[in-house]
């Protein structure tokens, strides 16, 4: 038993933290909120140079052969820095889907580009009436000669405006298939949604969008297979990002409680304050352990659906707690835009909802426990 990170992983974390503290201060996060791209191409390039964008791809595809545990460790730091970028959708969700489902040509062509940061791919899955877990997909792909013609509207597509490809989940004969759509293709219409934290997510309307059959990822009607595996993977990564952000909120609150003086003493000496900090510490420690356990099981190839559900359910509740404690203890100042607490709070909502919120995963867990639906 060894519940700690390896020395190498610790080094990676430390290096990532130092890098992000220097390169991604919250002033940059604020600037990027107001930028069109919503991420920094310069920083993106540096992340590519550090090997982050191909972290978990095999070396033959330009990756660094990292494991999911390595990736969770990195995303703790990314979460801590609330780094805005398409890294989760492009390199993790789409990257893993291509890795699991793509043919050799697709992998060899795309993965090196993704890991170099030259190509951004984003997942177009959710719709107005279908969450990420696949209510009925209404976007249709119809075979037409050597092509498919895709029609319908996708929603909540992150970074679609800067993506080179959309990895689109579309209904084919009876089930779902995956298509890589060049975002420049005629008939692709991308509209920014007005979102919390100015998050760059979009409506993507597809009107008679023609894609060659060779752009199908995985087998016809079997897109859910590789996608599901990638979603599992990405859910654990998402938990890592949440844990990192919550730890940061805890650190900020603790630091503040030591220096903010009221009634002649630091507020951290008031038990109403310190007990909230203690409770948050329990939540963050627990969320971290359950996340790494899920990562470890996935790496070891063991059944881990339950563990993933537990991780996301608990990370979600830790996240809500961090928001409540943060705003409670910083009090008035946290209600101002100039204070950073709101940055963490706004992003918490995106991360809690992404890939299923606590209730969704608790419901899944109920199923795994053998409760009838």
């Amino acid at each position, binding site marked *: *038993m*060894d*519940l*700690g*990170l*390896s020395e190498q*992983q610790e080094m990676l974390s430390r290096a990532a933290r130092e890098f992000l503290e220097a390169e991604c201060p919250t002033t940059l996060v604020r600037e990027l909120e107001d930028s069109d791209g919503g991420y920094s191409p310069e920083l993106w390039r540096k992340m590519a140079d550090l090997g982050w964008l191909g972290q978990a791809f095999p070396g033959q595809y330009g990756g660094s052969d990292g494991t999911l*545990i390595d990736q969770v460790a990195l995303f703790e730091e990314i979460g801590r820095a609330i780094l805005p970028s398409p890294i989760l959708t492009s390199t993790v969700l789409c990257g893993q889907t291509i890795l699991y489902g793509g043919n050799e040509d697709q992998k060899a062509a795309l993965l090196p580009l993704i890991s170099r940061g030259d190509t951004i791919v984003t997942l177009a899955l959710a719709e107005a009436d279908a969450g990420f877990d696949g209510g009925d997909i209404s976007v249709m792909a119809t075979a037409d000669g050597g092509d498919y013609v895709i029609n319908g509207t996708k929603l909540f597509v992150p970074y679609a405006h800067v993506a080179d490809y959309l990895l689109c989940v579309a209904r084919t004969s009876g089930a779902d298939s995956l298509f890589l759509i060049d975002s420049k293709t005629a008939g692709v219409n991308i509209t920014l949604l007005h979102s919390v934290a100015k998050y760059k997510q979009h409506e993507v309307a597809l009107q008679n969008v023609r894609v060659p059959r060779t752009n199908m990822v995985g087998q016809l009607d079997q897109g859910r297979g590789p996608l599901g595996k990638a979603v599992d993977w990405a859910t654990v990564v998402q938990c890592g990002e949440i844990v990192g952000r919550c730890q940061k909120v*805890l650190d900020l609150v*603790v630091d503040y*409680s*030591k220096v903010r003086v009221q009634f002649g*003493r*630091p507020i*951290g*000496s008031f*038990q109403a*304050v*310190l*007990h909230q*900090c*203690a*409770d948050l*510490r*329990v939540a963050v*420690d*627990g*969320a971290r*352990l*359950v996340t*790494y*356990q899920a990562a*470890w*099981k996935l790496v070891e190839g063991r059944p881990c659906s339950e563990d993933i559900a*537990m991780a996301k*359910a*608990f990370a979600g509740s830790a996240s809500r707690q961090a928001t409540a404690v943060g705003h409670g203890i910083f009090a008035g100042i946290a209600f101002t835009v100039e204070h950073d607490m709101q940055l963490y709070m706004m992003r918490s909502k995106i991360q809690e909802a992404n890939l299923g919120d606590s*209730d969704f995963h*608790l*419901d899944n*867990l*109920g199923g795994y*426990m*053998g*409760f*009838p639906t």
Partner: protein
Amino acid sequence: MNFELTEEQKKFRSDIRSFLEEEVPPEHQAVFGVESEEDYRFGRSIQRKLADNGWLTIGWPTEYGGGPKGPIEQSIFSEAMGYGRVPRTGTTALNIVGPAVMYFGTPEQKEKYLPPIARAEAEYCQGFSEPNAGSDLGSLEFRAVRDGDENVLNGSKMFTSWAFRAQYIYLLARTDPDAPKHRGISLFIADVKTPGISFRPLPYINGSMAAQTYFDDARIPSSALIGEENRGWYHAMATLDFERSGLERYASVQRTFDDFVELCKTTKYNGKLLSENPIARHKLAKIKVGMEIWRLLCWKVAWMQSTGAVPNAEASVAFLHGTVQRLEFTQTAMEILGLYGTLMHDPKWSLMRGAIEGIHRESMHLHGAGTTEIHRNIIAQRGLGLPR
């Protein structure tokens, strides 16, 4: 990173589990604190068998009869004992008094006290709390005054669990009233038969029997002083670090939770399985997550100990979460059972032999090794460095 035990450890776990499964059939399992005479004797007999197998003191250093193993094996043992719901006996002796004597005792004391503990023959109770000293234990007033080669004890101890089964009471007494409060306290082991010691029964709500203990000029030999005079507070605190994982408590609750989930899947009420109620399903899934977090937090403490680290805030993190989680579980389970939750051991109608009602009472024990508030203080002050 590795969340798993080694093959050898797994073998140990499965050996001990099958041993306990065989030796402790359901009718002998202790779901909560009831200790009938029969349960107690049974618990002791199991411990003797465990001692014969060399398992009882597996976490002790080899020189005192322990296994050549470490905190992980100790934790595996604790977890198996909890999950097997083995009636608890001798816990204070094994986890608290034994280590204190090992670390701070004289060679004569080691010879006198340790072998009976290791053979599951000696039973101890703990006399720390007093009527006016609970969380603020350091303010205790109980006196020990040196008189020749004896110490004269006066005062009263509160919440003496096991008092009626113990041969010895392991206690803290003030030996220097003029010293700063933590520096005037000493540790003693007193024979409960010592003239001047008496007990007032203090039944607990979980069905077990404790006492308030009175000392009226009770004279014990000075050789019963453990460690240095006036260093008792520090000795006692150091000894607390021996078994910190809390896995036994976790595992016994997990077992009841597992049974309860099974019950929900097989029991109909209002024409439907309890598990078909979507609200129950959701609540139980949430409890399952909380239980898993508890398990992981306990194992983190065990793992830290296995690396030689001394968990401090981490142990409080596990303890606090566990205490809150247990209450959350039992209240939820009571809610799901509705009126059935009000049945204790009704032979005809109670479900799980009244276990949920019992563990619900047990879960009001929110303050074993410190109240939840005290654990929060420890986490915040020692773990997070917040000011006092």
